[in-house]
């Protein structure tokens, strides 16, 4: 039995906006895999809820007119992993969301919910950061699109204006074309776990596969919100594909990240793992891109 004051079910995006305007205190609920847990814990007990779960127009993955990958915010993790568009253009996102919780959570949990929670450990978020994703927000003023890096404000807080909801996540064509990536989730067990650290890397190599044309790396749990490690990116961009580059790149992440010291994991431990993850994720990304790291 959940302590819910009222539940309003939206039938369409405009209907959701209207309901949110009518009930300014209401909390949006999609799959409920986080919201219901919080209600049970007492954190949101007695909440009014606007359910957007029935808005089918917010589901599905496709390529839009400009070639961007458009993921409806209500698309479940299982559907993202199974999507032919994701598998062809950005398989790493499918791999990343397949590491969320267990099968039941991946069936009910949505990518919109995963990002709107504003938590640093979200398995989809570091990959979306690493691929320069944008979020589409729909509200009373209409639709706006912002980079996901601007969407996250602080731990637990995202840039959702009153009566606004996230309706899609987009990955522009220039952000994915020619890139290959890898995501490593570091957790204490192989399933049903939250990341102690998540690392998503992708690279674009030059035609001869000998030089890193571009590289992007993002972390979850290396700070209060998902983050890019820009020093590391700069360190490796334009450099030759070789072990020294990989090592320098990995070491440079320590300039960017600031993981917490907590009972979940010590800072020194997280830093050590972060470097190792960067090394491995870059190595795998280079291999996927057709490059070879020769000693």
């Amino acid at each position, binding site marked *: 039995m959940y302590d819910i004051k009222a539940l309003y079910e939206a039938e369409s995006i405009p209907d959701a906006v209207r309901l949110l305007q009518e009930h300014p205190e209401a909390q949006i609920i999609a799959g409920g895999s986080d919201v219901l847990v919080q209600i049970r814990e007492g954190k949101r007990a007695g909440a009014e809820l606007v359910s957007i779960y029935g808005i089918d127009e917010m589901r599905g993955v496709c390529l839009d007119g400009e070639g961007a990958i458009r993921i409806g915010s209500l698309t479940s993790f299982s559907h993202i992993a199974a999507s032919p568009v994701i598998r062809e253009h950005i398989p790493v996102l499918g791999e990343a969301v397949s590491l969320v919780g267990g099968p039941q959570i991946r069936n009910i949990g949505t990518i919109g919910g995963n990002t709107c929670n504003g938590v640093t450990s979200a398995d989809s978020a570091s990959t979306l950061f690493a691929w320069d994703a944008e979020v589409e927000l729909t509200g009373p003023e209409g639709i706006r699109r912002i980079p996901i890096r601007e969407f996250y404000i602080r731990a637990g807080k995202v840039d959702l204006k009153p009566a606004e909801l996230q309706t899609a996540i987009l990955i522009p064509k220039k952000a994915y074309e020619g890139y290959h990536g890898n995501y490593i989730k570091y957790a*204490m067990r192989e399933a049903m776990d939250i990341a102690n650290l998540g690392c998503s890397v992708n690279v674009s190599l030059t035609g001869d596969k000998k030089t890193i044309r571009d590289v992007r790396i993002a972390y979850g749990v290396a700070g209060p919100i998902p983050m890019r490690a820009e020093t590391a990116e700069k360190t490796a961009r334009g450099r030759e594909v070789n072990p020294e580059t990989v090592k320098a790149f990995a*070491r440079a992440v320590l300039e960017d990240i600031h993981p917490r010291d907590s*009972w979940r*994991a010590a800072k*020194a431990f997280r830093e*050590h*793992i972060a470097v190792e993850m960067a090394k491995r994720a870059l190595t795998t990304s280079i291999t996927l891109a057709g490059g070879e790291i020769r000693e």
Partner: protein
Amino acid sequence: MYAGKSVKRVDALDKVTGRTRYTDDLCDRSAYIARILHSTIANGRVVSIDTSEAEKVPGVVKILTCFDLKEKHYFPTAGHPWSTDPAHQDVADRLVLTERVRFYGDDIAAVVAEDEVAAAQALRLIHVEYEEYPFVLDVQKAMEDGAPLLHEEYPNNILKHTQIRNGDYEKAIQEPGLIRVEGWYETPVVQHCHIENFICYAEMEGDRIHVVSSTQIPHIVRRIVGQALGIEWGRVRVVKPYIGGGFGNKQDILYEPLCAWLCMQIGGHLVKLDVPREETFVCNRTRHSIRNHIISWVRPDGTYAARKLESFSDQGAYASHGHSICAKGAGAFPQLYPCDNVEVDAYTVFTNKPVAGAMRGYGIPQAMWAVESHTEDVAAAIGADPLEFRRRNLMPVGYKDDFSKNENYSDSFNQCLDKAMKAIDYERKVKEYEHQTGDVRRGIGMAVFWYNTAVWPISLESSSCRMVLNQDGSFQLQIGETEIGQGADTAFAQMAADVVGVPMEKVHVVSCQDTDVTPFGTSAYASRQTYVAGFSIRQTGLLLKERILDYAHLLTRMPVFNLDIEDGNIVRTTDGRKLMTLAELATEALYSLTDSRHITAESTYQIKSNAYSFGCTIAEVEVDIPMCKARLLNVVNCHDAGKLINPALAEAQVHGGMSMGIGFGLTEKLIFDEKTGRPLNNNLLDYKLSTFLDHPRLMAEFVENPEPTSAFGTKSLGEPPACSVAPAIRNAIFHATGVAVNNAPADAHNLFRAFTEAGLIHDER
């Protein structure tokens, strides 16, 4: 014959179709909901509780606090048989609600409401004022002079200290040329994590209290509810339906007394107390964290000259099963690797932590973590092969323990090791993994375990059974020993069918125990049930058969000694002729106008024996050193549990125990905030119970040496599978990396520390 065959579980169909009804399914929807308010300090006293705001919540029926407890009936909680000798009774240190708080999570008040939401809202609105005392979380710090004292009656917080002195340790260590090996080995606080949280409900019928509980031990619950309420035990009726696991947590009285007391405070209305998972972790029972210190003096030829064990067991805040757990491990120490000169000191110590009680293995997983880690260290120190070193020093065939009278009848250890080695291809792998370098390395390690069966001669061992013949020749079997998911009912039906001589489907096991109806028994613990129930089932089955054949004589005029029951028929043994079916006999017996009889049998068997039950684990790991991860690649357990009644169920039992051992070795630990004593990870996300994906295929092997003391040749298998897995994993990691992880679990945090200390990983800067 059914014993020895992998027949289908008697409850399989109901369980796979979801038809089985558990406590919550049985509770009427009119029940009021009880929730407990737990202390938010680790040590101190409740000064006042303000419930005025909470009482205004619509749907709140009553709020009761520790100050409402007018009659203080202190009660023990351990699910032990009662002792009529006061010196051997369990420590009675609990009240249903307490003013004196001894751990973060102690029970200080309760809300009774019409539904869960009202109860939860009211809980959040209760304001408590405390007088705080300093607290202590570390077992050895708790023993220091001046440490915060939990119970006045126990100076230095020592609940009990026991000693073993064999030979002359001090003299023995003077022998020239000895190699001294010393180590500290510690296991963490872990929890059972049965799927069904503890739940019970209570209502009054007349002046009696009726409690339905998810428990392993209904007859013991009845006694303790009586003690806790200060009422005659006959006024208490306890019913135990199917339960979703217990693993020893439910071998303790948890909240049955509180639920019954709340029910009586509100006029006997039905009250349900369904404990949330977060509270199950903290406010039920845990496994004792035990810190063991071992010193061994070894001769260069690989024999022991002298050994010493100091064992510090963290009891948490209340006595529960108390020293029995630590004492069991300490008692195993001189037996597993016999040595002429042994000193053991075992301490059970109160700390301001959740209460530790029984958990699968009852002290032996902790002891084996220490002993088998140390055995590996000793072998390494003297340059011996760990397998040969064990073979040389393990308890020999013919070893007899004077206290329990247990005897090692068979060469179980060597047979189990041989079989496990073959299953996992040990010889090849141990060579292949020598001299590895690089970031990712593999290793293979082993551990053996000591276990026994049942609790004789420490406590009462008895089992009572009743069989009631039906008109169709089938019969009900009632017994005090409980089905807790392990398949006990199936094993009982197999044994009963064999003894009486009927097809198994003619045995209707009454799974539910009802203390008003079920014969007395102390139920599921100590891996005792198949062993002890075997005696009473055999005795009662023979009694039933005697009565049936007596009536068969009346109907057939044939002498009883020429009659038998085979496959549900009365058979003349001299020529094998089937004289009548048991159904024909049973119908005639009940409805006969000349000699009507209701054929039943009931008897109690007091068991005055116990049995060793030994085995081993071999584990193979892959260690990713930079990532601080050990992954289990293969694992095998081999057990000598005597003759198996149901091999498929035995295998399932071993799988479950191995799974617990994997979590114990690699990921599980309950942790506490040093500043407040607050538990930090009391939920199934942050407490890292291992999942299917953390398990390789679990291999279960058996050696079947029939146990000569047993009614069916069987002995314990419930707890043994959890005893040796963790140290085998630890030894495999040691084999792979040369790094000894002495504090369980070998999780990423501990491996990071250990690998850093060993210089295997470096600061990247």
